[in-house]
């Protein structure tokens, strides 16, 4: 259960932060909805990278 929480919280955190940045970007620059779309996808990618790093599949930082 601990491992499941660890990985799911990593993924959710990435997506939430990405969506948050996108939403704020749209609010500030009134580019709705493109900022949200772009940053949501980037956030998803970041979440997947977080999961892979914390699961030990990908190296911690590239080049380490």
């Amino acid at each position, binding site marked *: 259960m601990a491992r499941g929480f660890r990985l799911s*919280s990593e993924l959710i955190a*990435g997506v939430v*932060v990405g969506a948050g940045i996108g939403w704020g970007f749209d609010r500030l620059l009134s580019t709705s909805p493109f900022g949200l779309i772009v940053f949501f996808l980037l956030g998803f990618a970041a*979440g997947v990278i977080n999961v892979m790093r914390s699961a030990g599949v990908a190296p911690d*930082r590239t080049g380490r």
Partner: protein
Amino acid sequence: MIDPIEQFNIEKLFTIGHIGHHEIAFTNSSAYMFGSVALISLLMIGGVSGRRLVPGRLQSVAEISYEFVATMVRSSAGKEGMKFFPLVFSIFMLLAVSNIVGIIPYAFTISSHIIVTVALALLVFITVLIYGFYKNGLKFFKLFVPAGVPIAILPIVVPIEVISFLSRPISHSVRLFANMLAGHITLKVFASFVTMLGALGFVGWFGAVLPLGLTVALTALELLVAFLQAYVFAILTCIYINDAIHPGH
């Protein structure tokens, strides 16, 4: 029917004062925080006051907990990371003691509230940011540029790395909070099965044996989770501090 969420209620014990129109109250959560700190102080001060060469029981516990955290900091943040030993040790001891206190029936678990874990995670995050910029200056941004990546895909990789960095305090705090919350709710639900089946009469007593056994097993598991989550929180703190000391590695 027993409410499994009731154990997380915040109750006001007394009011300290007001800031503007906002009441600053001393709650049961604050009481348990002070209680945990008092327990830790008792353990550490009482443990080392004897200063015997052959440690007694309390001194052994104090020394083991020091060695445990010191090894953790050295192995994941290096020798320079020992500057942050007080921070990591305080966080680890607070979480470990308060989580273990929280398993005692009727006790309150402070880390089952996300505001507590977020405050701790943000403390670590801001420490990493300030120390990272203080120590490395603008080289700290190398953290977002992985070595050996072609320039063509940098515009995609850098935002992903930035988001991955910003998402750290969220995953850092949600992990601890969710584990404690879910564990305590599960425990309460299984324990309430015992009383509900027991109320059915003689047949129910036999049925209640199974959830009772599970409750005992889950309590043991929760003891492990309480310690493990404190450890995970502390080791992630070390890893993040390591990034502040050596970015671009």
